[in-house]
Each structure stands twice: as C-alpha cells, then as structure tokens.
C-alpha cells in the first residue's frame, strides 16, 4: 500500500544522485536509453530552476564573477544545499556562507559579504508594506514626551557591517548606474543600509554613528537611547537632519510612544 512513497523516493534519489539513477530508471516504461535521456530532462529542470532562483537573488555576484563561473557556483551550491521550499524566492539564504567556504570563490575577498548584502536586498523586495507615515499624530506628541518615542524601522530595512566597501560595490554593478565605475578599497570597514522607499530597494553607505542609532531603534530603543548610542561614536551627530531624511526615504516609518 505504500507504493507511492517508494516510487517517489526512488525518483527523487535518482534526481539528486547519479549513483541512484539506475534504481530510478527501472520504475518507468520504455527502452532503457530513451528512459535514461528523458529522466535527464527532469534532472536538468530541477537543477536549472534552483539555479535560476540563485541568479535572481544574486545578480551582482553574477556580474562580478561572470555568467559562466556563476552558473558553476549555483550548481555546486544546489548540490550542497538542495531546496526545501516550493517558494523559490526563499531559496539561497546560505549562498554567502557557501561562498565564504568554497575555495574557488574565496579568491575574491569581498564576494561573500556582497552576497550577504544581496540576500538582504532580495528579502527586502518581499517585506511588508508599512502604513503611511502619520505626521499629524507625531505633531500631537508633547515636547517632554518626544525623547521617549521609539522610532520604528521599515520591515525591509537591514544593516550590514563589512571590512569591504560593499555598498559601493553593489551600487556600481546596478543596471541603472551611470557614474564612474570606481571603488575605493582603501576606505576601510563600513556599514551598509538596505532600505526600500516605496517599492525600489536601495543600498547606502552609512556612518558608525548612523548605524548605532538605527541598530538601537531596531532593538526597540527610544530616541534618547538611540541618540546616546550615536553620540558615543560621533559627538556632533545631527539627529534633526537625519530624522527627516530617514522619514522621507521610509527608513523610519513610525514613532511609537510607550504603551501603544
């Protein structure tokens, strides 16, 4: 009675491992050579569909290493980390970790960090849409309560720290980029901010103080604690200018008062 499970187990094993192919081919009608070549179509499809998902999530990595090398990387990744989900937009979360451990890829020292950034960009595309910013509600907050407000970040917002200028590397590889194709690798470690004003995901290099402020906000800190965290890194941190900029670009989508 459990024949279906047994047939699917043999089919699946044959798709995943060439050594199990002979056991899979036996379950199909037809002459052996024809069955073998037709089974190969299913194997190619399942590999190609996963590789296509990796290509959609990591276009900058593909540009950096070239289409041919990237196709090899995607195939190798799939054989190490097969898909578990039918939603292929969820596939590829550990591609950066794979690149960091895969010797042919470690020759490009910033590759894994750019992949980490691309995954955050990819996930930001599907993050929830926040309610429109309510300026009237904010204006009604009394001055003495203002520092107790908790800035709430857009669900698409992510912070990433790297030893490499990953925000700039990402920027110069965008199709829409038409500036000078130049990256200053001497600038040292930096923070990248992923944000999504309306529907288009963007990446910006931000300062230590800005990153400290946003990290504190993200953990649920008040304006007061976030400001203190930022000023510890830069005494002349200009909150007023940044707050309006961050609200304008939907980095901050709301301010909550305690008890709300």
């Amino acid at each position: 009675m459990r024949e279906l499970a047994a047939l699917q187990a043999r089919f699946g094993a044959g798709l995943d491992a060439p050594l199990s192919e002979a056991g899979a081919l036996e379950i199909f009608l037809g002459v052996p050579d024809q069955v073998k070549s037709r089974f190969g179509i299913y194997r190619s499809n399942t590999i190609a569909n996963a590789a296509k998902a990796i290509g959609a999530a990591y276009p900058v990595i593909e540009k950096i290493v070239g289409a041919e090398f990237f196709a090899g990387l995607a195939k190798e990744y799939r054989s190490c980390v097969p898909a578990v989900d039918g939603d292929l937009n969820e596939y590829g979360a550990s591609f950066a970790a794979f690149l960091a451990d895969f010797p042919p890829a470690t020759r490009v020292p910033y590759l894994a960090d750019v992949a980490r950034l691309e995954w955050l960009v990819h996930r930001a595309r599907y993050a929830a849409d926040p309610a429109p910013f309510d300026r009237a509600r904010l204006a009604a907050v009394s001055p003495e309560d203002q520092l107790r407000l908790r800035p709430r970040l857009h669900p698409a917002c992510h912070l990433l720290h790297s030893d490499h200028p990953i925000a700039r590397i990402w920027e110069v590889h965008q199709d829409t980029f038409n500036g000078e194709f130049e990256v200053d690798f001497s600038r040292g470690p930096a923070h990248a901010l992923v944000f999504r004003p309306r529907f288009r995901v963007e990446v910006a290099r931000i300062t230590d103080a800005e990153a400290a402020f946003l990290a504190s906000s993200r953990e649920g800190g008040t304006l007061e604690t976030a400001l203190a965290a930022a000023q510890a890194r830069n005494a002349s941190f200009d909150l007023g200018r940044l707050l309006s900029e961050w609200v304008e670009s939907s980095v901050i989508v709301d301010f909550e008062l305690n008890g709300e």
Partner: protein
Amino acid sequence: MSLPGAPAGNPAVHGVGIGLRASHYREFLESHPRTGWLEVHSENYFGDGGYDLHVLEHVRSRYPISLHGVALSLGSADGVREGHLAKLKRLVDRIEPALVSEHLCWAALGPRHFNDLLPLPYTREALDQVVSHVTRVQETLRRQILIENVSSYLQFRASELSEFAFLAELAKRSGCGILLDVNNVFVNSVNHGFDPEQALLEIPGEAIGEIHLAGHAAVGELLIDDHGSRVAPQVWRLYEKACRRFGAVPTLIEWDTSIPPLDVLLDEAAMAARLSQAARA
C-alpha cells in the same frame, strides 16, 4: 459534493485571458490592455508585501484574477506542505481570485523540494492520496480548486489508469474542477504515443473550468513543454475540437520563457477567441 468557486461579488472569468508576467507589469499599470482576465503564478506573490503584490492588487480592480500554483505538490506521498498551503490561503484571502488552480503532479518528498512538476504513477493508491490532499486544500481555502493535467516525458510501469481517467476520478471524488491544458494533452500524446482526440473523450466536460494553451518545443522525437513560443497548429486544431466538445470554457494563453511583447500574447488570445466562437457557431 459541491464547493463554491469565487467568493460572491467577485467577477467570474469569461472568454480568453493571458498570463501576467513581470515584464508586462508596466503596460498593465500605465494603460489597460484589453483582455478578459489575468492569471499569475501564486508562489510569485507569497511575500508579505512589495512590488509584485502591489501590482496584483492594482490589476485585480480591473481584471478577474486566476491564481495558478506550481509548487503545492498535491501528489506527494507524505502529504500537503502545511506552510505552503498557509501562504496560499493568505494570498487567496488577500486577492479573492475568480479561480485557484494547481497541477496533477508531485514535487516534494520529505525535506526536499525538486521545484519541478514531476509525473505521478496513476495507481488507485495514488488516487486515494491525491483525493485526500485536494480535499484538504479545498477545505482550507473553503472553495473549489481546478487541477491541471501536466506534460510529461516518462510513464510509470505501476500505472493502472490512464492519466485522464485518473483526473476524471479525482474530479468526481474530490469535487475539484479540471484545468484542461490542451498543449499538454498534445505533448503527452506525442511523447507517449496515444490519440489526443480519444483522450478528450475521457474528460468529463462538466468538470472543466479552464483551458490552457501554450507553445512547446521539439527536441528530436520528444516534445518539451517550454511555454516559449506561439501555440502550435496541431494544438490549435485540438483546441477547436475541445471547444466543440466542451462549449465555451475560459481559456488562457501561457508564455513563460523568452517572453515576447504583450501584443504577441494578445494576438494569440484573439486567435483563441475566434476559434472558440467559430467552433460553437
């Protein structure tokens, strides 16, 4: 067994529709191309928010929408993936589509998802399983779903029923409708050597809720269902026969690889509308 289709007040699909793909989003946002309805792949809209969902919510106010799933894996021996079903339910609740459909296939087993429409052995045991999984999905979504016949390159030795007898039994026992992919009938008739017109006779017309048309590619003696070209002449002829036999069924033009300008899809849709009308005249 009778299940509701679209929620009350939601426009039903009529005539010919096309598959909405990201490369045509802009045209659908800026102008409103004339087409009967739109179909999208459900999984592309499983996110919490973002641009794809924004576009879908925009077009749903102007066109009836069909949600066509490609990865629920209704034929898995170890059951329906509850997480996947929950995401589908969230999308169905959000979009209130006119139609919801999936495939007669399997794609997942244990922790693995193969991301392809793999064929099933057409056995009594598999039929019992698929009936129970379709029932589970229809109860969760609180509506009828349509199940599509897939194209395939291999047939199981274990099969006891024909593909179409299996689909007919599934519809009868679960109360699901049938999404008849005429291109897949033709592709399989060549790949497995049967008469496609005879196959149409096995399908209960009253269960058919939608027809799919797409292009295929020939690789040697094998036909590959790649949805990457215009509908083939033999498939148009089979479609005319289906129209004569089944009457007016909402029909969709599918195109998934090497997607052409929108006008080409609309042109194919116009051809389907002409043939459907002429066949019933």
